[in-house]
């Protein structure tokens, strides 16, 4: 299995091309229209004669539906149709993407609630009208009569009944290796913790939107406003609505943030498609913010009961974890993926001889949940790093030292764990964990900081520092493809099966293409998120695009380059090996003067009517598919200095460092942007953001006044250390994903720093660390 993984030191030098743009902080090709107000976000898409869709949503968390009365609404001017569950009974439940976990089908969500409403916000009926204001007016007149049922809001509580014969635990994800019982029997000490992570989510600034149109002339159903997983969604929409996949096209415009939640297949996506087909008019739906906070995927909420067996030196002998994942009311498109990831990724960077985990996948009467940036890792890094701090405290060891003793060493790479996640075996592909820890501590001034903290405490301040080590995953395979073409004007087009969620995919892929081909990156057109331009694709998620589509881009561009050199060599009467491409001109590689040929001319010579082609497939174009059996594992360290306001209980992050080894940075400016932006989201989850419910299951976080997103005022002075010490041996560029490391360790680092400020190890047991909690801790200390 590890044959394909050559040790880092034996790797050849990183691939370079003539373009000299990979590794440089160049500006983005995406930005022009976005700063001019010329973007094309979902709400900006309009078609003549379009109808507007408005959802009628459940106002009770758990109830039996007795009747849905639509007469008054139907009589409103401009209303064209109103549907309830009976009208869409032919549309199957919304499916999930397969992992190894099976048997979840009965728990999937219908597009409109059938018989029972299971969370506040669940679609119950849907109104179509000629104007969005009128659609909303009409929706308010739809009356749902219902009989309230008891609600289940605690994933650790005894199981309830989902439906006859099915309880509220669709599955338990179990993983184990090593002699776990022996580890605890022989332990010098056993450290036990009970920890929880609050319910929060991606909450992009653009709400969801979907615009469907049936083009009868071509018998094509179009869906606009899509993101992330266009090809899978196309196939499922086609299957669920009984159409051939070739008769469904998904289009991606600009995407106002994804973070895991956007681009999944939701009830509203199927409803606009079904309506466009049935009503024979384009149908537009734009979510409002209150809807978003109760309808779009939640994430994160988990409760862990974890214990570690350690020897006298603080070395891990075994970890045993039982956790409860609050999935909310239905299984959505990720199935049990977050539980699977949490269980697989919990061991992180540490050498762990024995491990046993049971992840209870539990349904409650809350908005369904799925992935959010660093899914399963934000949670388990918090849990694992709390555990490491607790081990240090128990044995009287330094927090850094206990980590050093347990980190997998560079000599042990690649490090195979007898575990899997997302259906792939976990093989930590490369890394120098301790080396990065040293760099990070030094850059942050960790040792000097300890003296500063003592001085500030002596002056009466409540200050502390925390650290967390994390391992991320990226580059989920198995495949992605890219087609690179040069047209007769010399313009380069790159068509990718990936998508963009606003993170700079176009620029990164253009840089890789430009590097390999020897052209200007800024003049490359990057096409993504369109099922009509490329037959297959696996989308943008799991920090996979730069790894998978980037590698495919590299190989496709190299193939085009080879074709161009071959053709030009014949014309220039030189050998291909004598030639290179510089700024779009095929010329002598040795720099000596000589004839040259523009790529445009080469492309013309390879056109369909060029005598040189004579029946061969024309075009200066190549499509390459990159395959990967294993993920690439970036890693890093979070360090933070916090100050606590004793009066208000507010935790202020003063200074923060994220050190992250991502193998190779295609564009350091974009990588830093990803990390700082990820840090902001992590801070939200650590200190502010939480979907709260009252005891009857009514959501309390339904506006931005209640669901608090970090503003600039909450941001610390943030430093980023991008390391490239451990390129991935799994792809030609050596890259690992950079999208999630900024978020991963924030909860853990903040918790550790708050403990340190309170001078009370283990004080923080739950996220977010809100002022009320801190005040209570301060009171109990006094």
């Amino acid at each position, binding site marked *: 299995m590890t044959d394909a993984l050559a040790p880092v030191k034996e790797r050849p030098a990183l691939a370079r091309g003539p373009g000299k743009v990979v590794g440089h902080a160049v500006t983005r090709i995406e930005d022009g229209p976005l700063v001019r*107000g*010329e973007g094309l976000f979902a709400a900006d898409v309009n078609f003549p004669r379009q109808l507007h869709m408005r959802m009628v949503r459940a106002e009770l968390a758990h109830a039996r539906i007795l009747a849905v009365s639509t007469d008054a609404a139907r009589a409103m001017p401009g209303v064209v149709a109103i549907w309830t569950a009976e009208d869409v009974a032919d549309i199957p439940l919304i499916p999930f993407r397969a992992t190894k976990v099976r048997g979840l089908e009965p728990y999937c969500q219908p597009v409109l609630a059938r018989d029972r409403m299971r969370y506040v916000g669940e679609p119950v009926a849907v109104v179509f009208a000629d104007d969005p204001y009128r659609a909303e007016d009409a929706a308010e007149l739809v009356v749902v009569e219902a009989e309230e049922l008891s609600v289940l809001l605690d994933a650790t509580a005894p199981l309830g009944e989902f439906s006859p014969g099915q309880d509220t635990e669709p599955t338990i994800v179990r993983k184990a290796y090593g002699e776990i019982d022996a580890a605890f029997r022989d332990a010098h000490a056993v450290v036990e913790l009970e920890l929880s992570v609050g319910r929060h989510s991606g909450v992009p600034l653009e709400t969801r939107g979907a615009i469907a149109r049936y083009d009868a002339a071509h018998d094509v159903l179009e869906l606009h406003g899509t993101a992330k997983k266009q090809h899978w969604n196309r196939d499922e929409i086609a299957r669920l609505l009984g159409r051939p996949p070739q008769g469904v096209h998904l289009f991606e415009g600009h995407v106002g943030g994804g973070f895991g939640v956007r681009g999944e297949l939701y009830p509203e996506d199927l409803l606009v498609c079904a309506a466009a087909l049935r009503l024979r008019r384009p149908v537009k739906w734009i979510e409002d913010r209150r809807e978003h906070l109760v309808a779009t995927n939640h994430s994160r909420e988990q409760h862990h009961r974890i214990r570690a067996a350690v020897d006298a030196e603080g070395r891990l002998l075994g970890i045993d974890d039982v956790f409860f994942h609050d999935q909310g009311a239905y299984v959505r498109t990720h199935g049990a993926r977050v539980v699977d990831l949490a269980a697989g990724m919990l061991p992180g960077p540490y050498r762990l001889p024995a491990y046993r985990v049971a992840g209870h996948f539990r349904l409650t009467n809350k908005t369904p949940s799925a992935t959010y940036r660093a899914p399963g890792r934000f949670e388990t890094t918090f849990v694992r790093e709390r555990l490491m701090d607790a081990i240090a405290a128990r044995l009287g060891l330094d927090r850094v030292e206990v980590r050093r003793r347990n980190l997998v060493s560079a000599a042990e790479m690649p490090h195979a764990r007898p575990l899997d996640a997302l259906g792939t075996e976990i093989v930590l592909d490369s890394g120098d964990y301790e080396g990065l820890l040293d760099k990070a501590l030094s850059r942050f001034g960790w040792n000097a900081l300890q003296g500063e903290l003592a001085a500030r405490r002596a002056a009466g301040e409540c200050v502390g520092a925390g650290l967390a080590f994390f391992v991320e995953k990226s580059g989920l395979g198995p495949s992605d493809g890219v087609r690179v073409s040069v047209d007769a004007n010399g313009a380069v087009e790159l068509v990718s099966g990936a998508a963009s969620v606003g993170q700079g995919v176009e620029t990164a892929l253009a840089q890789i293409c430009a590097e390999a081909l020897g052209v200007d990156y800024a003049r490359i057109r990057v096409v993504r998120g369109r099922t009509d331009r490329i037959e297959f694709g696996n989308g943008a998620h799991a920090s996979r695009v730069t790894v998978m589509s980037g590698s495919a881009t590299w190989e496709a561009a190299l193939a085009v380059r080879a074709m161009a050199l071959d053709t030009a060599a014949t014309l220039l009467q030189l050998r291909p090996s004598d030639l290179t491409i510089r700024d779009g001109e095929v010329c002598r590689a040795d720099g000596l003067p000589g004839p040259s040929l523009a790529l445009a001319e080469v492309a013309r010579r390879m056109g369909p009517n060029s005598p040189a082609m004579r029946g061969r497939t024309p075009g200066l174009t190549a499509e390459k598919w990159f395959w990967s059996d294993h993920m690439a594992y970036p890693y890093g360290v979070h360090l933070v200095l916090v100050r606590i306001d004793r009066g208000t209980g507010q935790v202020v992050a003063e200074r923060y460092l994220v050190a992250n080894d991502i193998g190779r940075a295609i564009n350091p400016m974009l990588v830093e942007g990803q990390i700082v932006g990820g840090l902001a989201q992590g801070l939200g989850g650590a200190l502010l953001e939480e979907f709260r419910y009252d005891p009857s299951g009514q959501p309390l976080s339904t506006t931005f006044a209640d669901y608090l997103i970090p503003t600039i005022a909450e941001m610390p002075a943030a430093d980023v250390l991008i390391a490239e010490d451990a390129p991935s041996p799994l792809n030609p560029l050596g890259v690992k994903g950079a999208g999630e490391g900024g978020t991963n360790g924030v909860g853990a680092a903040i918790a550790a720093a708050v403990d340190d400020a309170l001078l009370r190890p283990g004080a923080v047991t739950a996220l977010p660390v809100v002022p009320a909690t801190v005040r209570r801790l301060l009171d109990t200390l006094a």
Partner: protein
Amino acid sequence: MSDLHDITLVLNGERHAVRVEARRTLADVIREDCGLTGTHLGCEHGVCGACTVLMDGQPVRACLVFGVQARGRAIRTVEGLAEGGRLSPLQQAFIDEHALQCGYCTPGFLMLCTAILEADPEIGDQALVDALSSNICRCTGYANIVKAVRAAAAAMRAGTAAAEMA
């Protein structure tokens, strides 16, 4: 609809005559009636600032203003920032400093920052943080937005100095 109102508003220097319901927000008037979709809606209750436009020079939330309240007022939106196809120093600085990722909050931030710089190009650090904290960005973590404001101020100073030299 009995309560239709005929209003004229001046949008980026152009007069627009529209007939709107009293309840129609300025954001919808700008986007749907005038067709300028650069102004984005993020929350529709005045918290996130994505819909920030300038009304008689002052930043306002277009989701909290009714169209009829903008009768006769001069409104500036993101579409009005570039002059003759040339990006404003602030727009250019947002690109140069990577102050945007998904770009959804960007028009609101550009309008807010335009107002900040027009009011006080030498605004102090704490005052700048206070002013910028009125808008939400979910992607960038804000650091590069601050850099862009400072870079734009420097570019504007240099531009003014060059103009005075000429």
